């Protein structure tokens, strides 16, 4: 459904910005949008989930999506 696709895209954009701001994630073009287990963004999501005490799935699950939308300290968790 279009709504699903749009929601997914928004979620991806949210997590990508979050990882760039707080987990020193550098976007390197198309490859980071492919949700393979060993893609850079999946690794970063796991790192973030581990840091924040979430279940480490590497996926954009609802808990993860909820947490990254909460107010937080602006200082990065993993500094560049």
């Amino acid at each position: 459904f279009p709504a699903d696709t749009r929601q997914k895209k928004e979620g991806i954009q949210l997590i990508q910005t979050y990882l760039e701001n707080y987990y020193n994630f550098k976007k390197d073009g198309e490859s980071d949008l492919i949700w393979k287990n060993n893609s850079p963004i999946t690794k970063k999501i796991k790192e973030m989930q581990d840091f924040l005490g979430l279940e480490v799935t590497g996926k954009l699950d609802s808990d993860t999506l909820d947490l990254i939308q909460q107010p937080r300290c602006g200082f990065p968790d993993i500094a560049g």
Partner: protein
Amino acid sequence: FSTFAGEPKWTKKVLTYRILNYTPDLHPADVNAAIKKAFNVWSSVTPLKFVKEENDLADIMISFAVRGHNDFIPFDGPGGAVAHAYAPGTGFGGDAHFDEDETWTISTEGTNLFYVALHEFGHSLGLFHSKDPEALMYPIYRKFDPSVFPLHQDDINGIQHLYGHTPITYSDQRESSEVKEPDEPKEPALADTCSPDLTFDAVTTFRGEIMFFKDKYFWRKHPSLREVNVVLISSFWPRLPPGVDAAYEVPEKDETVLFKGNEFWVVRGDTILPGYPQKIYALGFPKDVTKIDAAFYNRNKGKIYFFIVDKFWSYNKRSQSMDRKPRQIREAFPGINGKIDAVFQHNDFFYFFHGRKQFEFDPGKKRVTRLLKTNFWFPC
């Protein structure tokens, strides 16, 4: 807890802060009070003191800004990042910036300035983000409960790793009027060990040390060392409710008994033994006894004494029998009158705590030998 790479920290104990501008969300006086309260919390568990600067450059410069504001981390509008602060150092080291696009409050609605400032000043003092979701230094902002002391044991361990254990002495506080002023709003902050008004909920020996219980934490003190450590009761015994009414240790069994209301727990170190809590009636108390004020174990006689209002019961460990009837405290302990807050045995003396006084009692001579302050055991 974790610190910044290289563990930067302030080398001096008195730090200055300056509030460069104010959010229109709050009255400036409320901003001043919230910022001072946040610094007070860190002062209460370290030797650090904080003095407010009005005009000059300060160690910690505090400001409200939106979006890009001349540093490396622009703010992002309402929500998201609410504030950030920098590790100790020169220049903007230690500075704290608050996102003016948030709705700053002094209540539990919106974004509470005190709570966020407390986290950011943790960074200003050298703490990095913690992975412990219960810690103040956890990066995600959550609603906080104003009735609970805001620092978790993880935060206390972190800041005392950087700046040492001993809280500042009361006389120092008087000198720096900025840190403590009489009209300071009542907060569940850590009581000051050197205040003449200090009272205790319970005191017991514990594996060679002495534990002084107060509200949700206790001070640990070795009788022959100056150092005092503050510990959250919940970090030692998570299942215990906050506050302890009475406590005594049976050293030869390495067991300590803790009383709260009409229940008691037996612990060995930081482990609560299975089968507890139990009701105090299992010890033989009548139903009209609802709490124990104080208790101690007289090793020389093998007896445990339980003090309730102006009477006491004693339990003989050898015959495993409790007194049938209570006796007046002043009959058995001349000079000790009325309700007792706490009592413990050290060497061959009993120390009774009653409000702001402490009575040293010699059981051999059956009389009070010294009248002491409650903070007698602390390096004041």
